[in-house]
């Protein structure tokens, strides 16, 4: 479900990019690159994530700069530019700072940890009991991670 939503969002973003390309005076390139960077950062939990996030921020900044110097555009078009850029900046910030929350909102049926096979834990005692309940002959591995 999450993957479907992500594909759907990617498709929508692509259509939006094409539609935006038909308009003049819009900071198409920086918007597309910023969205692409943020999207890629969201979809990949790799060591490239910080770089992709940084790129998104740079392109949004570049978009604002480009929009600010597009004096030949009408007032309404400039307002639209800044509106789109601001929205893009907000979405990118959301992806950067609240990736899990956004993912959970976009894919509510994808199940959170407590609904899938991960139980909420209130004490290390629960882990200790599970650890000791495992077969003695098994090698045990404890992994501590952040979801994001």
């Amino acid at each position, binding site marked *: 479900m999450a993957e479907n939503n992500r594909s759907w969002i990617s498709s929508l973003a692509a259509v939006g990019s094409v539609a935006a390309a038909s308009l003049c005076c819009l900071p198409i390139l920086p918007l597309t690159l910023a969205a692409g960077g943020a999207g890629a950062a969201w979809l990949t*939990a790799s*060591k490239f994530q910080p770089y992709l996030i940084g790129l998104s921020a740079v392109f949004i900044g570049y978009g604002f700069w480009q929009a600010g110097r597009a004096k030949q555009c009408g007032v309404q078009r400039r307002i639209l530019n800044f509106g789109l850029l601001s929205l893009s900046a907000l979405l990118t910030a959301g992806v950067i700072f609240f990736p899990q929350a956004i993912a959970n909102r976009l894919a509510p049926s994808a199940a*959170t940890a407590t609904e899938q*096979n991960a139980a909420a834990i209130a004490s290390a005692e629960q882990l200790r009991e599970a650890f000791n309940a495992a077969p003695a002959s098994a090698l045990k*591995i404890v992994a*501590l991670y952040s979801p994001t």
Partner: protein
Amino acid sequence: MNDALKKLDPTGARTRVFTVWEKVLQSDGEPPIAATISRVSRPNSLQFWDPERTVSKQAFGETDEDSVAWDCLYIYPANTRWASGAKAPAHNFTARPVVDRMDEFEQALAVALQ
């Protein structure tokens, strides 16, 4: 981690993995989604969501923000029982990011499984 485990213990019969997802970063407000969980999903293994970082505090000696047990792996040999408090692991991989230490992890795992 999953790659090494799939390679060295494909059926999951010889290992048990206990994954604890902790709230560490500002962006960790909510439990991990299924896609996140599936990254470390193994047969016969358990995953926990620990928003208060109780495991880090009660079992791994977290006393302040600098001592959070996070992004780390601990390997315990067979027949280890966890009596109380923190256990000294046979091997620990605590230098972040732990993903950069997967070669060492695989080697340690291979030795431990011999």
